[in-house]
């Protein structure tokens, strides 16, 4: 029984490996859940995309919806839901590839990487070797996820068109509850010592990238104005702008005259996300723009 079982398993793995080898390039967006999408993204970057893309976005779910092709023709969105910009920076640093440009989301820049949240960074060299050479061990090629992706592509085609209007519907009752929860979560500002330590850590991290010739653009994703005004949010924003504008980093703030709608206080609707991306692109193409809050923006053509 044991021998036959092992034979069946080996046979299945061999067939599956052949399938991945022949059709792997047609398989995309296989993540089944938010957590898995993060892992797939991280694995995909490490094992397939690191050398292909010279422009990257790091951040949280707030930046996940940013349409990458608006920013650059060769841009990989490494923003991961539930994680922070630091997680993405860590992945890039560990990959050993120094990209030309990184867009760094400011909102979660001071949120440290929690233990166990980024499983891929805990892989031993043996595991890394196995994941690199045995594709069936990667999250991207989980059979159920692959089945889902193939089914989706078969039903909707490879390039699924999403109407922006579908993302404009906002459940206002839910929005209020979500904002209330976010306000509750952000009731207490971070202690100064924690804030200082994080700023110091992040500065060191970003300086390392700059030393390797990587250009950094820090951008703030707009959130519900009530959340933007909490002591927690303001303290983080001040700490970042004070530190990095003085160091001649490029910072992009949301358009203060625009109204961005969110689904839950922190995530932009698809429509608002397009508006914001447009603003981001326009701002970056305007040389030496002086922002109302005094942050100096340096012209950078991504």
């Amino acid at each position, binding site marked *: *029984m*044991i021998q*036959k*079982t*092992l*034979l*069946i*398993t080996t*046979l*299945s*793995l061999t067939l*599956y490996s052949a399938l991945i080898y022949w059709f792997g390039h047609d398989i995309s967006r296989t993540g*089944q*859940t*938010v*957590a*898995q999408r993060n*892992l797939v993204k991280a694995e995909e970057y490490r094992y397939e995309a690191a050398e292909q893309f010279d422009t990257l976005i790091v951040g949280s779910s707030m930046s996940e919806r940013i349409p990458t092709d608006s920013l650059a023709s060769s841009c990989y969105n490494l923003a991961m839901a539930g994680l922070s910009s630091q997680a993405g920076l860590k992945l890039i640093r560990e990959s050993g590839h120094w990209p030309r440009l990184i867009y760094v989301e400011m909102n979660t820049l001071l949120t440290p990487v929690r233990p166990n949240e980024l*499983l891929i960074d805990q892989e*031993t060299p043996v*595991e890394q070797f196995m994941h690199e050479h045995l594709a*069936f*061990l990667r999250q991207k*090629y*989980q*059979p*159920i996820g692959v089945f*889902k992706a193939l089914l989706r592509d078969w039903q909707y085609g490879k390039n699924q068109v999403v109407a922006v209007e579908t993302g404009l519907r906002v*459940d206002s009752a*839910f929005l209020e*509850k*979500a904002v209330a*929860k976010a306000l509750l979560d952000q009731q207490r500002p971070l202690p100064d010592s924690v804030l200082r330590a994080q700023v110091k850590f992040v500065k060191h991290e970003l300086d390392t990238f700059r030393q390797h010739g990587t250009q950094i653009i820090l951008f703030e994703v707009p959130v519900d104005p009530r959340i933007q005004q909490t002591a927690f949010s303001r303290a983080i924003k001040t700490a970042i702008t004070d530190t990095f504008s003085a160091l001649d980093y490029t910072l992009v703030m949301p358009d203060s005259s625009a109204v961005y709608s969110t689904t*839950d206080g922190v995530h932009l609707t698809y429509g608002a996300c397009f508006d914001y991306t447009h603003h981001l692109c326009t701002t970056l193409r305007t040389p030496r723009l002086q922002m109302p809050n005094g942050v100096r923006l340096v012209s950078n053509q991504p």
Partner: protein
Amino acid sequence: MLFTSPSFVLLTLLTLGVYYLPVLRRWQVLILTIASLIFYASNQANLLWLLLLSVLINIAASYLVIYGRPQYRRFHAVWGVVANLSILLFFKYGPLVSNTFLRTDQGVGAWLLGLPLPIGISFFTFQGISLVVDTYRNRDVPAFRSLIAHSLLNHAGTVLFFKGFFPQLVSGPIVKAYSFLPQIRPKFWQHINWDYCFRTLVAGYFLKMVVADNLKDHTVLMTYPYFEALSSLTLLSLLLGYSMQIFADFAGYSLIALGLAALFGYQLPANFNFPYVAASFSDFWRRWHISLSSFLREYLYIPLGGNRHGSFRTYLNLLLTMVLGGLWHGAAWSYMIWGLAHGLALVVERWLSDRQLLVSASTTARLLKSVWVFVYVTIAWLLFRLPEFDHVLAYLKAIGLNQQKPHDTLAISFIMLYSIPVVMYHAAYVLRERNVRLKGLQWEFVPYGLMLFMIITNSGKSGSFIYFQF
């Protein structure tokens, strides 16, 4: 170090290799004890002292019950149980007391709130109680007395091994002293039942890594207030998914524990017996977490009087046992309410059966009862997933109100897909029970082979076992 981590597999393989070396046969217990301590320390090294303190208490209490002065035997048993319970109460329920009765921002309240929860404390405490109580109850039984070595050092080694044996250390099954101690004897490689070990481990890892760990990433949507944005159907699917997840998680863990213990020549009690086919609540508790329910029956319900003092006392004992059983699961009032809900169900069921109102034995009646028990049990799991009672009510309310919201078809599909193995697992049992001859049994290596394939390729993001927190 989780059962699913490569480091654990390495530890097990190394221990197994050393354990069966003929020259080291007389040190087998010591080898397993060292491996167990490494396992515990790798999870929570800073609280290893607490496990050892608990072991010391049980060494002393059980030894004194047998070899102490006869007139103090009862006293030794009582302080042994009280000391065990005190550790549990202090570490597990200190934060609850603090949250409920004290100021949590300063003084004792803040200190209690900051207490760490030792992994597996509920399990190793109950095993300690079992050792002390079993020793006291069997103090005059020569066969049991012989298990308590006269040499204090040997006895200490036995107790440390009994409480620390790593397959069951952190999440059970809760092993009773009278069933485990007689198994401590030299083990031989050729006596390993490889077929049993292989099947149990493959089924256990499949349930945990493929079913539970994948469902876990979907049921994360059951978070307040985010679930309020989901449709009724999505919410019902999530609830079903959580019910399947908690079964797959704990039953999977228990199967792995059984398989691992069998590799070392020890037989642990089965912890699950297809609980979701239960046709009554008492049947459910004979099938779910069997080692806990039998512990509660033997060491709490029966000592309280069981059903020997009339209907009212029986109902009261049932309620009390289930409420305490609920609180055993976690230091939150929601767990107590969960226990109360099950206690009430048992009381009502008993009241009905006392009056011969549950006598229909037709297949349809049995099926309906099974469905009812499953629905009730599944709704009660909400108290596990959402420890805030207000959030539980909000969830139930959302099920009723959110009929017009769009369905999350992807989440629903995945939940159904990952729930299929649990349904099939139970269905196969029902068919076996009904003596339906399943064709193709000689091909059973195919599903096992595919399960192994799925473990390798389709495991979810590794997460703690739900019962680790208890």
